[in-house]
Every structure is written in C-alpha cells, then in structure tokens.
C-alpha cells in the first residue's frame, strides 16, 4: 500500500506539473486517511503543504431511498476552498462509480474546481457509470459476490486490502 501511494503521489505531481493549486479531497471514511497520506508524500517530494479536505457525498447519492437512512460523515472544505483548483478525489475502493458520481455533485455545491481527478487505492471493476480513475493503486479483478475491504493503520490498526466472500448477514 505504501508503494502504491508513493507512486500515486508522484503521478499526481507529474500530471499537475508541481503541487501548486492541488487540493486533495478524501471520501469518508478511509479515503480521508489515504488523502492525508498522499498529502504527506507530496509534501516530502515537493515541500510545501497540499490542502486536504473531506467530502461526504451521502446526501447526494442516487440510492438513498433504496437503503436504510445512513448517518452523515464529516465534510470539511480544505483551506483555500476548491474554486479554480485542481481537485483530486481520493477513495479506497472504486466499484460501481455511484459514490464518485455523488461526490462530483457534492463538489459542485462547494465551488467550481478548474479540474477534477480521481485517485483510488483499489479498482475492483463492475462500473455502473462512465467513470474512470486517473490514478489507481491496484487493479483487483473481483467477482460481484466478493467484498473488498481496505484497512488503514489510522483507523483499523494495520494496513491491508482484504477480499472476502460475502458472508450472510455480516458486513455489507
């Protein structure tokens, strides 16, 4: 995971030709931890601070009515806002693409970035929308009955990517 993040950090810098105007927006909960780590790595290479924010797209999801009401996560605008910036959305797993679609709509309400890119640690396929990540930690072909869980040290005590067969009843 460490190597993948370092690579993504370099890729972001390369594409953006430096860290000026780059803003990282993590999608809760683990996307936020990953965004912070990316910011640290970018700072280590380039010096200077990259603003990190968090963006909870829950209120913008198209499947809200299909599930029980979810609790909201924290949304925090990065220092300096997003207007005119190069925003990189950061999430742990990319699956159907619906979270990202909701996040794009949510981002609209915060301001108008110059450019929006998407970084994910794991791309597991099965897209339901025309959404494609710009930076991928690892492509992980999975069956739809499988679950991909990303654990991060900040939250779970260790870094890991787990593929689980769906067990009836437990974690969705």
């Amino acid at each position, binding site marked *: 995971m460490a190597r993948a993040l370092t690579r993504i950090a370099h890729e972001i810098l390369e594409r953006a030709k430096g860290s000026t105007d780059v803003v990282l927006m993590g*999608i809760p*909960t683990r996307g936020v931890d990953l965004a912070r780590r990316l910011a640290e790595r970018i700072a280590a290479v380039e010096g200077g601070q990259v603003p990190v924010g968090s963006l909870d797209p829950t209120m913008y999801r198209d499947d809200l009515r*299909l599930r*029980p009401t979810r609790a*909201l996560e924290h949304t925090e605008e990065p220092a300096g806002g997003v207007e005119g910036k190069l925003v990189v959305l950061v999430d742990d*797993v990319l699956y159907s693409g619906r979270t990202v679609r909701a996040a794009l709509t949510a981002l609209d*309400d*915060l301001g108008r970035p110059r450019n929006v890119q998407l970084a994910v640690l794991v791309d597991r396929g099965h897209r339901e929308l025309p959404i494609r990540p710009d930076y991928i930690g690892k492509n992980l072909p999975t069956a739809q009955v499988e679950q991909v869980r990303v654990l991060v040290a900040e939250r779970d005590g260790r870094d890991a990517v787990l593929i689980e067969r769906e067990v009836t009843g437990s974690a*969705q």
Partner: protein
Amino acid sequence: MNRHLISAGDLSRDDALLILDTAAELAQVASRPVKKLPTLRGRTAVNLFYEDSTRTRTSFEVAAKRLSADVINFSAKGSSVAKGESLKDTALTLEAMGADAVVVRHGASGTPNRLTNWIDGSVINAGDGTHEHPTQALLDAYTIRDRLGRLDGLSVVIVGDVLHSRVARSNVLLLATLGVDVTVVGPPTLLPVGVETWPCATSYDLDAVLPKCDVVMMLRVQQERMHAAFFPSAREYSRRYGLDARRMATLPEHALVMHPGPMNRGMEIAAEVADATRSTITEQVANGISIRMAVLYLLLGGTEPAIGHDPAHTEPTESA
C-alpha cells in the same frame, strides 16, 4: 421501528446524539453559497398548523426546502378545518395527496399521536397542547453543546410556566437522557401535578439555584393558556421569577441564557438580558433549521429511519 417523532422521551441517547451530530454537519450547508441539498427531492412535507406559529412553521419550511422536498403549508385558518372538517378527514386528505411527512402543531395534547393512526408517512410533533415539542428540545440541546462543548454533567435550570410548557417537558426528558442535571423552577401553581415523577429536581427559589447552573432556560409566560389566576400579578411574577440584569450577574461567568421565543420582554426576561452576549436566543433560531433538517433526513432519507433502533444499522456500509 420508529418513523415518527412524537416525544423527546422516545429518543435513546444514541438517537439524540445522532440527530445532534447530523445537525452539526448540516449546519455547514447554511454557510455555503448553495444552501440546498438534493436529498429529499420528490418528497412532500406538509406543515399542518392548527395553532399560529411563524417561527416553528417557517423553520420546518426552510429545513424541508433546503433538502429539496416540496412543502405544503396547511393552516387551520382559511382551510376546510374552519368549515368543520375533522382531524381524521384532514389526515386522510393529506394521505391521499401522498404526504411523506406531516409536521403537526395542535392545541390539543396527543394530536400527533392520533395522526399516526391515519397517516403512512412520518408524523413530526411541532408542539401539541401542553404536552411536547421535541424539535425545540433538540435545538436547545444542540445550542448548549455548540456553546459549551458538552452536555454530560451540565446543570440546566428551566424557569417559569412549566405547567403550560411543552418546551419544558420535552427539554427535561431529552436533557435527562443526555446526562444533564435539570432543575425546574417556578411558582408552585405553575409546576404540574406529578412533576416529582419527572427526571429532574424542582425548586421555588430562583436565586438559590442560579449561582450553580451552566444554563438558565427561561420559559414564556403563556397568557393565552392561563384561564385562571396562577400568580398575583405580572409585577410580582417578574420580581420573583424574571431574569433581569441583577439576577444575571449572579450566574457563573460561562453560563448561557436561553429562551424558546417569542419573548415577553420585561416579564420573564429583561430586554438587556435578552440582548446580552451570553443569550443564545437568535442562535437557537438558526440552529432550529439544522435540527429540523437532521430530523427530516433521518426519518425520510432512506427505506427505514435511522433513529429508533439499533445504532449498528446506521453505520455507513461499503464505499461503492
């Protein structure tokens, strides 16, 4: 499963904290250039107000509109209620119109509870008689937590016409659930029978409790509900239970002064106290919108409400 919000007493500690936390997130929306979320698009909320209340009705209306719900205001004046339509028929009409939520204010205690029999959507109590006003209690708790940083272990004094006050009852129930020590203070004639069974202490002496409290919550003297002589004169009430500058000076430095509004300035609260920096009266109004957005979202947002059952259900699931 609890799809209605009738009483603050129905909320568990987890439910109440979930509502406050959700409101805190939604409060950010108010400071954005775009103050609207698409969450309840296509849903209909009806404000069914049998009693006048600009403040509460507008607050619910703004909250529902910020979540993109359609809002219908239905006031008793000028509607078929004035022609003698029964509550049940009104409810059936609303049901037929496809109301997803009915926010009801009524002069008779128990009306919201009654409505739940006839309406499939969520019923939210916006004040029923002298019974309850749960969203007011939630916004008061939110305001206290916002200003003082916590609720657990605080001491809150509720002063005045407790007998006629649905705000007082809801606050006592909710604040007790949230770990606050509540004392109600008022003349013996304005404390309800059975107050000793409430989860709070009682006192007749305001001056004795003020120096030890973190929050003093003044209640409006509800002249419109007073059909008997509960105290000798307005002047005497004001002298014993009104909050003036002299009394305010006996409060601890950090203590807040709250009032649910509308105020009778000079009666239960002096103008200079109402306008002091430690008074939260206008903040309470702003926080009311966030709280009502949170309640509408948590009750209507998904297939089942997020409050009223096992908190494990509300954990965010996968990130797809």
